[in-house]
């Protein structure tokens, strides 16, 4: 935007947007201005109404009342195609991807037919190289990791030369280096005059990247601010009102006995394009939180599967749980002995989408919580168990009889993590504990993991969110290409070192655990 006069007109302006669902006010009199070339943060907890607002901007949903102005002119978007025609692109948080199709086909579906013509795969390669988002157009999506899937969404948008780019929680699955690359991309786009509406709850990122921020709470705009003039704390306070808690961690805990031990654990991946685990050694002690960092697709999924018992280890002794060799046991036996497991995918692994909360609670808690009587379900006890989880972890739901897929992602995650914690296992393994979860819920999930360790459990957290790992871990190890680095005390390792380990530098051969 070289014309000074035109920069006076906001690229996007919302005036008095209202949207009510049966029983819930999702947006109440929301107004918002995004100027050309501005990176504008939209900040708020889960359920604050960000998604509803964005759906309105992108033409997915209509508002009850309210105006949308594009370059100063009123527009009414019938559908996302109309939004894309105006120049609005969107990267979804819950990816709008098609598993059984290739990367190229996924991108072709999401762009206009004129754009999809010609050498699309060549252009995909070009854009992905240009913006540091490596993608192979011929790969099938179901073989890709979460991180790689997100790149498809980003590239899909960039191919359309958008004037406004909406990004919904874009960095939750990226490594620090990848985040830096993305920010470079976004800053360059902003310099080229592209406006960016950046939805996130990572306050440090917003401070670093965004020019202005609109903060929402309970469907209303509660503040507008300039992020680099605020502190993360002050923004968090506005966002959450008085719900704010930051995790407390007892430092310099002495190590207890080893509760979970992986000894020379190797596993061949069941997945096409998966990563084999090679001779992984790891000791998790009572009373500690051990964090495993790594880029998506480096063996985390395989590690989780071999720990849960979805795939069996080659020898029983490869996995020792409180002195018992569990490497060849099925998941139920492992749970009985005392391991709690929180997989990455909420649906399919963590919960059954169409079943009620109490049924989902029963599925993992049946043996440990004694919810069965001669093969029959103890409905009342199961209900109490589920209600206990809902209460302790402040899961927002009308009742435990409601289906798991009626909960928002963050709420369901609280429920799934809570379900394992309430069973009080001696060892808990959690993959991506706070993915797609808002700041308030994430803080409470992290706190409860720390509390578990304090009570003497061994906690193993696999995450791509380094901030999170530094916040809660006593020691951190890095997984790269199926190999595990030494675990080191959190105080003695830097983000740069982890970044190098993630990229596979300095991992050759030294896989012995040093306590």
């Amino acid at each position: 935007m070289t014309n000074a006069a035109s920069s006076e007109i906001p690229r996007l302006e919302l005036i008095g947007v209202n949207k009510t669902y049966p029983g819930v006010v999702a947006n109440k009199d929301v107004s918002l201005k995004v100027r050309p070339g501005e990176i504008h943060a939209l900040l708020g907890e889960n359920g604050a109404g960000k998604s509803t607002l964005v759906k309105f901007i992108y033409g997915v949903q209509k508002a009850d009342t309210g105006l949308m102005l594009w370059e100063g002119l009123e527009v009414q978007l019938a559908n996302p195609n109309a939004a894309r025609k105006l120049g609005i692109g969107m990267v979804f948080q819950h990816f709008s991807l098609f598993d059984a199709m290739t990367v190229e086909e996924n991108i072709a579906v999401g762009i206009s037919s004129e754009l999809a013509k010609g050498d699309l795969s060549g252009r995909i390669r070009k854009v992905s190289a240009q913006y540091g988002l490596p993608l192979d157009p011929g790969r099938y999506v179901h073989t890709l990791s979460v991180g790689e899937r997100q790149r498809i969404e980003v590239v899909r948008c960039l191919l359309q030369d958008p004037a406004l780019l909406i990004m919904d929680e874009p960095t939750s699955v990226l490594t620090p280096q990848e985040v830096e690359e993305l920010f470079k991309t976004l800053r360059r786009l902003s310099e080229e005059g592209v406006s960016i509406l950046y939805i996130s709850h990572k306050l440090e990122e917003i401070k670093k990247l965004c020019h202005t921020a609109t903060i929402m709470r309970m469907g209303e705009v509660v503040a507008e601010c300039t992020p680099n003039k605020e502190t993360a704390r002050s923004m968090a306070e506005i966002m959450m009102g008085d719900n704010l808690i930051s995790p407390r961690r007892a430092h310099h805990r002495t190590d207890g006995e080893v509760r979970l031990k992986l000894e020379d654990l190797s596993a061949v991946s069941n997945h096409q394009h998966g990563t084999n685990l090679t001779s992984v050694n790891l000791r998790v002690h009572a009373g500690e939180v051990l964090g495993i960092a790594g880029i998506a697709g480096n063996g985390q999924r395989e590690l989780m599967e071999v720990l849960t018992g979805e795939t069996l280890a080659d020898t029983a002794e490869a996995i020792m749980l409180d002195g018992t060799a569990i490497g060849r046991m099925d998941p139920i036996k492992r749970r009985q002995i005392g391991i709690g497991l929180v997989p990455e995918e909420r649906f399919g692994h963590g919960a059954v989408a169409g079943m009620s909360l109490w049924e989902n609670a029963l599925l993992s808690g049946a043996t440990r919580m004694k919810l069965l009587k001669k093969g029959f379900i103890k409905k009342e006890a199961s209900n109490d168990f589920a209600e206990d989880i809902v209460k302790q972890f402040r899961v927002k739901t009308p009742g435990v009889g409601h289906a798991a897929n009626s909960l928002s992602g963050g709420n369901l995650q609280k429920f799934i993590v809570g379900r394992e914690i309430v069973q009080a296992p001696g060892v808990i393994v959690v993959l991506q504990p706070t993915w797609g979860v808002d700041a308030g819920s994430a803080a409470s999930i992290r706190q409860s993991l720390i509390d578990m360790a304090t009570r003497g459990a061994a906690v193993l957290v696999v995450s791509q969110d380094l901030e999170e790992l530094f916040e809660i871990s006593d020691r951190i190890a890095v997984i790269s290409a199926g190999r595990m680095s030494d675990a080191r005390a959190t105080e003695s390792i830097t983000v740069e070192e982890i970044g190098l380990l993630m990229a596979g530098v300095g991992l050759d051969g030294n896989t012995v655990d040093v306590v």
Partner: protein
Amino acid sequence: MSVEWLIPAMLTIVTAATPLVFAAVGETVVEKAGVLNLGVEGMMIIGAIAAFAMAVTTGSEVLAIFSGAIAGMLMAFIFGVLCVYLQSNQVATGLALTIFGIGLSALIGHSYVGNTFVGLAKLDIPGISDIPIVGPLVFGHDALVYFSILSVASVAWFLKKTRGGLLVRAVGENHDAAHAIGYSVTLIRMGAILFGGAMAGIGGAYLSIAYTPLWVENMTAGRGWIALALVVFASWKPWRAFFGAYLFGGITIIQLYAQGMGVEVSAQFLSMLPYLATILVLVIISRDSAKSLLNAPACLGKNYHSSG
């Protein structure tokens, strides 16, 4: 083995396979869009009676084929309105459609029992069609046989190479994502269902105006169900469905000839063969879960509820 019976046997295999090809290819598109229409049998038999009635009344082959296609489409339209717009259960609705089709066709067909029709004309190119073996096998069929091959090729090309095909697959794979991107799930599905209906109708028409040009109650005799099995058998690939149809047609006809030649195997065992073969192949292809995951439309049989 002598050639005298081989050539006619192969010709009958083609005619036995063609109705299956039509129905299976149509259903492939429907299922690729995420809709499971178990009413294939019903749409086929309505197509059969509509085509036969038209053929007897007007004597026109072309009108008969069109009337079969339109009748199949009308049946599919009922199914589509119920399942896509009114969100009824696809399995129950499809079963009901089959039962309805069989009953309605018997009612309509009552007055046509005993009528005959000359049957579809075979292609006859002087000189070429008379070449021994190759002539009758390649150039001696009726127009619908060629049309069935053309339809397989077109559908395979459509699904794989065109944007329309991409949208059909997208809707069947993840209807929520397709909606979020901005496509009308209902319209695309409705289109696929109508296409499937038309193809099933033509398949039925082939039975009553070419395979056995007369009307017998319940004359589809389970071919709609075979077509449904073929779609899975073919892991939703049009060309595989085509070969499956010929394999099935082949086993059906060969067992007839084997019985005719007095092979010492019980007739019941031989008539069982085609179905046994289908089950066997289904077992074999389901062994590789990664591959079947790739081909089965993820939203197959799930209704789409548009929210907001």
